[in-house]
């Protein structure tokens, strides 16, 4: 019982902090809007079959915003360590697993709030989104987000200081987003790029969302949803273990 309470408390803290950080909420909304309106608008002349580029881009942008928020939630553990609060949490008489679960669920919840807001932008730019595709997107988004938060938590338990944060952004987050096929159709990409993209777990998240929202994608839905689910499951398990081991 007290373990549930601990999960809840850690989760609640994430939400309170998220709610207070108006700047972060706003900026993480501006980024997807810029991509959709300017990037999507500029490439407006591109038609992929009967789908315009803005619509094509849309599922990728949803995945991208999930990615950035989820990973930074995971990495927030580094901040907690820096400001000493992690110690207070780690000496509490609860299992590390509960703390990990609270962190992961907290990160996932904030990412989902943001993700759903971005999803709602579909109506603004005229992407055909029905109630059923909207509802189907949500579990897929949860799967993506939980996986990425766990990756963030794994990194946080491996690296020591906040200075490495920029390195992670450049060497992990940007490549994962660019390789995921969020901006271009994988089916038409050069062979070498295809292979690299298939290593990127986010590819399967983007493909799954695109399949649901637009009904077409480079990979069959069954494959993309299985890969991203397995990836997230592994990330959660490894994350839990890494968190358990850290000092």
């Amino acid at each position, binding site marked *: 019982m007290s373990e549930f309470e601990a999960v809840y408390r850690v989760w609640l803290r994430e939400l309170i902090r998220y709610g207070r950080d108006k700047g972060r909420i706003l900026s993480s909304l501006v980024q997807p809007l810029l991509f959709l309106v300017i990037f999507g608008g500029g490439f407006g002349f591109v038609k992929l079959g009967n789908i315009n580029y803005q619509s094509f881009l849309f599922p990728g942008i949803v995945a991208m915003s999930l990615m950035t928020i989820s990973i930074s939630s995971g990495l927030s553990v580094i901040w907690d360590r820096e400001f000493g609060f992690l110690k207070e949490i780690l000496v509490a*008489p609860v299992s590390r697993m509960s703390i990990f679960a609270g962190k992961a669920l907290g990160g996932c919840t904030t990412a989902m709030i943001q993700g759903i807001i971005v999803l709602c932008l579909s109506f603004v730019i005229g992407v055909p989104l029905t109630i059923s595709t909207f509802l189907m997107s949500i579990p897929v988004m949860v799967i993506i987000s939980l996986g990425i938060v766990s990756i963030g938590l794994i990194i946080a338990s491996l690296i020591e200081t906040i200075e490495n944060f920029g390195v992670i952004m450049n060497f992990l987050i940007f490549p994962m987003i660019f390789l995921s096929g969020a901006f271009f159709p994988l089916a038409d990409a050069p062979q070498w790029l295809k292979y690299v993209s298939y290593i990127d777990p986010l590819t399967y998240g983007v493909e799954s969302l695109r399949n649901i929202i637009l009904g077409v994608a480079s990979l069959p839905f069954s494959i993309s949803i299985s890969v991203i689910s397995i990836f997230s499951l592994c990330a959660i398990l490894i994350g839990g273990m890494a968190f358990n081991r850290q000092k």
Partner: protein
Amino acid sequence: MLAIETFNLTKEFDGLKAVDNLNLQINQGEIFGLLGPNGAGKTTFISMLCTILKPSSGTAKVNDFDLIKQQNEVRKSIGIVFQDPSLDNRLTGMENLEMHAGMYAVPKSERKKRIDEVLEIVTLSDRAKELVRNYSGGMKRRLEIARGLIHYPKILFLDEPTLGLDPQTRDHIWEYIKKLAEREKITIIVTTHYMEEADALCDRVAIMDYGKIKVLGTPENLKNGLEGDIVTVVVDKTEDIESKIKNFDEVTKVLVSGNNVHITVKDGEKFSLKILDLLRKDGVKVDSINIRKPTLGDVFLHYTGREIREEVPGKKEGMRRMARMRGI
């Protein structure tokens, strides 16, 4: 009844023993002071008792729970105020306390009452709804003390609770601690740099250096243990001075620290005349001379050979400190 009993408790960092085979007993309900220079191993010692660090060898009983086998029980039964700040600045004071109460499974029905109680002890009731980032240093410390008390701990660890605070705030914090010990009837274990404060507050103190306890007792007994007065002469040169002074039978200890020569001696008044004669004959210029009863600071100097405020660490000590920082 013992609150804490350690058995050869040891912590090594890369072959350096930060805490070296420590055997210590702390009674229930006492205020126990742990004194020592930076890098003496105080924080490492406390960190082990709080289950933050695993001992390299040895063990301890905390509130009758085994430090290693009953980690969660130990954690539930103690409160900790860390040396470094550990509050969430983006939460309010109240939210910090609520989170702690939840993590420590304080029964829901008691939470509100208990939080109000601890806020009252540290007189923060009217500021509880503000964000912690707007608190002053002293308020943050008080909130941390309040937080450490929420779950009815039997022992409260305070690691340098007044470090970096101004003298007035320091007085206040000590007042809270004293009030607390009386009101909550808990054992308090405190590390500090401030000798006068330890003297005034602690029932017993232990002086720690290089991972070992040099001496332990009530402040009164420790001071009396020096047997005599402290004569301090400030001179312009200190060469050979130590051996010369030691030739006097009544001198029990001589310590040279910079230009200060601290002499422990019976009947300080008489001796001070003798020493002035000697120094004048040797052509040593005496700036000032001071005779007084020993303080805890003198006890510290006596057993460690250093003044507590000597902040520049020797090489070995510096390594210890690094080891400690890496350990946490």
